[in-house]
């Protein structure tokens, strides 16, 4: 039930799986370990995917590593929650603190394409003020990025990922029209809309990274609702079906099932390449530049694991901030039952949302949040019932029988960066012999105030549409950010605006870990926009001979 045959690397023979055909291949350029490539990128998710594609398209030689397999969704993604856990990062991690995080399925992917292979596709932009939240809103930290510049990269990301969104989006500054139209909103989403209208809030069909009409070889979404365990339709515009094929065509090499364990740094303090584990052996790839894009846990872990005599506290860590300011997002929910059949598993889970409290500042805490419709599959739903309500036995089975009548609203809320929420190395080792991470997390009082506000608001919304047996799920969190924050100076941050480390000039970090604050929306579009910008910046630096 849980075991799949162990997979072997697929991209060893100068070809990569063609994600659009069963058993198909596309040609891929191979590089040897000894060749000093322009860039090694570690991780092929929301950050590493677009960066690899853009760098290759700009003519750099790039090898991208991913610890996970290179799947063909059409033939390898079962319509099944349990077996699709093969998409998640399930290596051991230890969690503690006052509010230990749930990892694995909740926030960590391990596959070519990273977490975007199983993400929920919600594709939102930051509110412009969040890029200067310290100055304008009085909390967190300012970003060294200008929102207007980000607006153009968001637009590019939305084009590249064929985001399906409404013709006009109700919040924030004007944005170009989404490349594809919004999807039909299911019953669960319409109940969110009804509740929002009753509260006097605006709502919107959610901009999603799954196509509502054909795009290339992607057929439109069939509303099967398995998005969070992988889209076998290929409607989902994950990195795996967008930037990765682009990267391969542009000459990048993708090394699947290749776990980078250590970044090598020479006596002059420059990175020279990476040690990686593939097909049972450790190898070394030489590189002129190294980009880490392993997400908020693996990125600091790798930097810390790469400590040398010269950098005893880990690479890029003269500020002592690698691993610190870890952020998650509050993902609390309110659930209830309707008289009518809702059948919430039909369609992508979050077809409608309201960002009201991201843009309304009349509240007595910092940060904002949005909430979205929900459609958990049975295992996930049962874990809500056991977790939040402690149900088991007959009571659980009876409650589960209401599955088709259930509705829910879930928030994505901004948690504040805190120095002590962090990733460190534990004493235990994993299958590669590398120290496993320990993740420590506690909510701040502001976080708790935001959560209470959100829960009360969502509860009202459910009450207004006539839901019964309403209950609150108070403990859930999801997306990660921080641990290698970008900033204005080497004392207060790990990387600069170009995602380049202050300490090691040819070492970059380009993923969710560079976020100084996390905002009240899902992060992937911002990560992708940053990666697109970083590629442009690297090109500019190279032209000026500053790489």
């Amino acid at each position, binding site marked *: *039930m*849980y075991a799949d045959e162990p997979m072997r690397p697929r991209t060893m023979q100068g070809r990569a799986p063609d994600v659009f055909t069963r058993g198909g291949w596309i040609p891929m350029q191979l590089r040897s370990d000894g060749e000093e490539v322009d860039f090694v990128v570690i991780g092929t998710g929301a950050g590493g995917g677009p960066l690899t594609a853009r760098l290759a398209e700009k003519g750099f030689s790039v090898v991208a590593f991913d610890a996970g397999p290179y799947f063909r969704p059409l033939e390898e993604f079962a*319509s*099944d929650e349990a077996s699709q856990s093969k998409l998640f990062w399930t290596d051991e991690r230890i969690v503690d603190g006052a509010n230990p995080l749930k990892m694995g399925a909740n926030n960590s992917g391990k596959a070519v394409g990273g977490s975007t292979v199983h993400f929920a596709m919600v594709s939102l932009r930051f509110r412009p003020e969040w890029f200067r939240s310290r100055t304008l809103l009085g909390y967190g930290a300012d970003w060294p990025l200008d929102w207007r510049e980000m607006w153009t990269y968001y637009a590019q990301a939305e084009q590249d990922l064929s985001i399906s969104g409404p013709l006009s989006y109700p919040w924030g500054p004007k944005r170009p029209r989404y490349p594809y139209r919004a999807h039909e909103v299911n019953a669960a989403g319409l109940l969110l809309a009804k509740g929002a209208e009753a509260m006097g809030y605006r709502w919107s069909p959610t901009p999603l990274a799954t196509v509502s009409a054909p795009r290339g070889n992607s057929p439109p979404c069939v509303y099967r609702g398995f998005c969070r365990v992988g889209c076998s339709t290929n409607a989902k515009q994950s990195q795996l079906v967008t930037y990765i094929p682009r990267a391969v065509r542009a000459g990048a090499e993708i090394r699947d099932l290749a776990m980078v364990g250590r970044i090598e740094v020479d006596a002059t303090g420059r990175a020279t390449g990476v040690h990686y584990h593939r097909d049972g052996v450790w190898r070394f790839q030489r590189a002129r530049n190294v980009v880490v894009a392993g997400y908020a846990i693996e990125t600091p872990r790798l930097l810390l694991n790469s400590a040398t005599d010269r950098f005893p506290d880990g690479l890029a860590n003269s500020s002592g901030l690698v691993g610190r300011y870890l952020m998650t997002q509050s993902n609390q929910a309110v659930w209830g039952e309707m008289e*009518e*059949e809702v059948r919430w598993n*039909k*369609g992508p889970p979050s077809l409608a949302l309201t960002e009201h409290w991201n843009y309304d500042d009349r509240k007595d805490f910092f940060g904002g949040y949005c909430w979205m419709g929900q459609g958990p599959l049975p295992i996930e739903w049962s874990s809500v019932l056991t977790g939040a309500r*402690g149900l088991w036995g007959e009571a659980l089975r009876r409650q589960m029988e209401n599955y088709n009548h259930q509705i829910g609203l879930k928030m994505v809320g901004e948690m504040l960066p805190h120095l002590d929420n962090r990733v460190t190395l534990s004493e235990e080792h994993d299958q590669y012999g590398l120290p496993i991470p320990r993740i420590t997390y506690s909510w701040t009082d502001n976080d708790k105030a935001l959560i209470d506000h959100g829960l009360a608001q969502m509860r009202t919304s459910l009450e207004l549409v006539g839901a019964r047996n309403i209950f609150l799920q108070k403990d859930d969190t999801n997306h990660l950010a921080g641990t290698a924050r970008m900033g204005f100076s080497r004392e207060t941050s790990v990387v600069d605006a170009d995602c380049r480390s202050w300490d090691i000039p040819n070492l970059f970090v380009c993923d969710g870990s560079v976020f100084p604050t996390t905002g009240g929306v899902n992060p992937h579009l911002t990560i992708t926009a940053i990666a697109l910008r970083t590629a442009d910046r690297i090109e500019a630096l190279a032209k000026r001979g500053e790489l």
Partner: protein
Amino acid sequence: MTDGTASRYPGYNVLSKRDGPSWDEVTRQVIDRRLNVPREPRFLDPERFRTLKAVCGRILPQPPERPDVPLAAHVDAKLFDNALDGYRHADLPPLREAWLRGLAALDAEAHAAHGRAFADLAYRQQDTLLRRCEAGELSHPAWDGMPPASFFSQRVLADIVAAYYAHPSAWSEIGYGGPASPRGYVRMGANRRDPWEASEARPGRERTALKENRRVR
């Protein structure tokens, strides 16, 4: 799954869609494998397995009119494969160790309280023990520092309940459509059912539901 009119979705069986457009080859393979999980333990010894079976019986008591989902076998398979979740709370030992210790401790508690193995207790006694475990009220030395409440919520509940709702019998029971690729769903509005979805036996429409469910392909 069940034909009894007591069922909320009489006559509905997700497996009737197995050869239709809602299932693809990889899904068929995965579910076939699940339905054929080895019934004999491969990781736990018979004594622990007996305890586990008893625990499963209380966490998810199953209806008598259909074959049980072999929950203990699925948990044992997870242990055999050492299929990790990707994290564990700092106060819990790793997956296998946690189950071994937890099952032994439950048995030790049963012996201490009633002089019998956990599996030999009456349902009520088993429930009481489990509830005390859930509340963190157990303290036999056999726990060896592992908090019973964490063991209960993060191992017992999580692993057993996940195994149950991964099973087609459970999907049929709750009227869930099950696998859906290449065919997904068409009718998205409230009270709208695709003909390949479960039909609910609301009062007064039990026969219609039965008829519609038999036609699900």
